[in-house]
């Protein structure tokens, strides 16, 4: 039986905020805390100190990331911190490993972290992984490893900053705040969970092959500059306020049932006509522009939440990793993705999460999960709970 509790705060003082969070969830003697914050705290050592003081023990695993705001059962906020704490009463061992300065070799970093975890688990395969990393890392390179070399679900996302300033972000590993790093948590033991992902956006215009790309920077599509291609397909120039909301869907994403989105983030340092994406693409990829509509996003989340079958699975806690671009697009309805889920369970389901700069998770296709994929403009819902068969 997995127990969960969530809490959030808008206290500006880092120690006091984290102390409040720790104290709020300490009642279930958590084994792991998923921590999500905004980037406004000025002293992360103080923050971590407050969290552990609030928890009353240093033995709790902490993993998390900063985002463009926080999601929690009680609030969705532009500033503050939120936690989801889990306790399996010792049934699950939560293993954690990290790698720093990974930008140059993300694939190697993932492999090192997974090897570290495997060693901690004496070679056992975990039920799932939770992964967070820095948005400045090309997550498509992380994807190549988690997609092709890890057979269990990997869920997570890329840390972000405040309102797409693209300046800095944080990932959390136990008592540390890290930058340019990757942190993975392995659930070593019986964990019942469900993963729901929403990434159905309507494509517009005609597909085009990527002519030239270097990592996250794409310069040519369909014989023209990338920005010209987007402008041609959307009927308007790509503007600063479109960042994160105009998306390229990769049509030749991989195997059947696999679909990936890459949000466009125009970088003022990028040479004219090129576009920086939230994740890399390859020359030859066939892409099509998607322009999301708020109503489309809302309908999809409603559909996902309605499809949760509580006869089969009783959730006890939820993690939401949802693209910051969705939040920007939803505008005044930024709490919608949390409130819809909360309302489905009478306002009692502990929920925490963050608006991310890239999402990770397998899709559900033909009765099973696909390979682990890196997405943009996507809503990832991870439910911890208990299968009805237990």
């Amino acid at each position, binding site marked *: 039986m997995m127990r969960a509790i969530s809490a959030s705060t*808008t206290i500006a003082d880092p*120690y*006091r905020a984290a102390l*409040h969070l720790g104290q709020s969830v300490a009642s279930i003697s958590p084994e792991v805390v998923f921590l999500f914050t905004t980037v406004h705290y000025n002293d992360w050592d103080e923050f971590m100190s407050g969290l552990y*003081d609030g928890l009353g023990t240093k033995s709790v695993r902490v993993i998390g990331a900063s985002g463009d705001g926080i999601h929690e059962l009680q609030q969705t906020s532009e500033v503050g911190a939120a936690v989801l704490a889990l306790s399996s009463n010792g049934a699950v061992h939560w293993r954690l490993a990290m790698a720093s300065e990974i930008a140059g070799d993300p694939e190697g970093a993932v492999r090192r972290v997974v090897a570290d975890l495997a060693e901690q688990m004496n070679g056992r395969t975990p039920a799932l992984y939770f992964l967070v990393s820095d948005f400045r890392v090309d997550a498509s390179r992380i994807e190549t490893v988690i997609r092709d070399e890890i057979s269990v679900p990997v869920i997570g996302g890329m840390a972000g900053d405040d309102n797409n300033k693209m300046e800095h972000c944080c990932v959390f590993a136990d008592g540390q705040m890290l930058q340019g790093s990757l942190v993975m948590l392995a659930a070593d033991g019986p964990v019942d969970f469900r993963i729901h992902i929403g990434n159905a956006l309507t494509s517009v215009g005609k597909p085009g092959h990527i002519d030239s790309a270097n990592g996250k920077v794409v310069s040519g599509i369909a014989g023209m500059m990338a920005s010209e291609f987007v402008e041609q397909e959307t009927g308007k*120039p790509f*503007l600063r*306020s479109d960042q994160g909301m105009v998306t390229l869907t990769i049509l030749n994403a991989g195997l059947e049932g696999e679909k990936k989105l890459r949000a466009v983030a125009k970088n003022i340092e990028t040479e004219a006509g090129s576009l920086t994406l939230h994740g890399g693409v390859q020359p030859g990829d066939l892409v099509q522009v998607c322009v999301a509509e708020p109503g489309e996003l809302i309908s999809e989340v409603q559909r996902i939440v309605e499809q949760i079958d509580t006869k089969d699975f009783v959730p006890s806690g939820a993690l939401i990793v949802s693209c910051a671009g969705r939040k920007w697009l939803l505008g005044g309805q930024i709490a919608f993705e949390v409130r819809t889920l909360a309302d489905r369970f009478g306002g009692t389901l502990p929920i925490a999460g963050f608006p991310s700069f890239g999402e990770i998770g397998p899709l559900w296709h033909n009765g099973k999960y696909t390979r682990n994929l890196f997405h943009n403009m996507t809503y990832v819902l991870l439910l911890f709970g208990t299968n009805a068969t237990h």
Partner: protein
Amino acid sequence: MPQFFTTISPAPLGFELVDLTKKHLLSGPVCVLVEDESYLSQVFPGYRERMLGVVLTIGEAYQLEQATPYLWHVALPQNWLPSAASLVQGWLAAIAGTDKAVQQFHAAEIRNERLARELEYTRRDYNELTQRLQAQLRELAAARDALSALNNQLEQRVTERTAQLEDANRNLSTALEDLKRAQDELARTAELVGLGSLVAGVAHELNTPIGTSLTVATSLAAEARILHQQYHDGALKRSVVEGFLQTAEMMSPVLERNIRQAADIVERLRQLTSYQRTETRCTFALSEVIDRAVALGRIQLPGAAYQLVVESSALINMDGYPDAIAQILTSLINNAAVHGFEGNTGGRISISYEETHHEGRDDVCISVCDDGKGIPKENLQRIFHPFFSTKFGQGGSGLGLYVAYNKAQKLLGGKLTAASELAHGACFVLTIPRIAP
């Protein structure tokens, strides 16, 4: 839930005796009772800036100090301590409210900063869009000017082209007129050719009877000169006179027949050239004209085995030249009787007629068809030519169909056509306006 901590033992009512730590001081709105406030600096040096709540110390008299908007220092007389917790309770609630307001203010500041940034992005986007729109407007204006220039060029070219076309039209009109003139010339030439052919035919036709007549007359004249000489010489013999009379008696019918034949040819020529002057225009019923032609035609048929039938009975009133129509029909019937049934032991000529409408004009279409031997293809193209006949010397003049053709075209304003297939008869169709021009 407000918390009350103290380092003083025994703890007053409502207070928890603790070893004070940073955690206690920063737990939220708290009330801390200590002997000396300076002790708090030893526990956590930054407490005055970050702590929320009330610090209680023991003093001689009631004293109050506000360190920050949410931290107060209160000195209480010893005897007030039992009621201190209840005294501070509401105070802490007020500080919590202040803290909440400060949090909201902080969040609002962040939101405002975000909004300001988003507004800045939006303003930049607006400026960029405006610049692009202005650039597009400039491009549109340039395109409009170019289009205008192009239009002017086009108009100029259209004007020039129109003038060229007008010239071409004039040239065409001139050419058309030239062509018409040439056509007229050709027609005249053709008429001359026809006339030549006519003259040749007439000459040929007249040559035989006149030549024969001339021979006979010359012979008679020679005989007469011999008779006259013998009479003058007084050597005239009875046998010579009788011979002359016998010759004259024999030659006279020949001479008469040939001269009559020549006269007949002349009469036909006269008819050909004078019908426009002699035909009388009137209104009439077509069936009566056809009946008249049929009655005349039946006489021309070689025997009872040959039939001439009228297959139509419609009442068609016409305005025109009934005699011309009758003459054409008689000619066609005669042509069938003479040429179509040659060598046959029987045959049938059928006449049908109907009213038609063509290009807004009421026409009458009269067909004369036979089931005779038909007309060879090479002859079919020539049957309306003057003096074309396969019966020269056998009573054919070669003018019957020619006259009929000309009457149909020039007098009646219609046309006469023929179709035939060997061994399957021939069909002549006379198409004329119901009201003649």
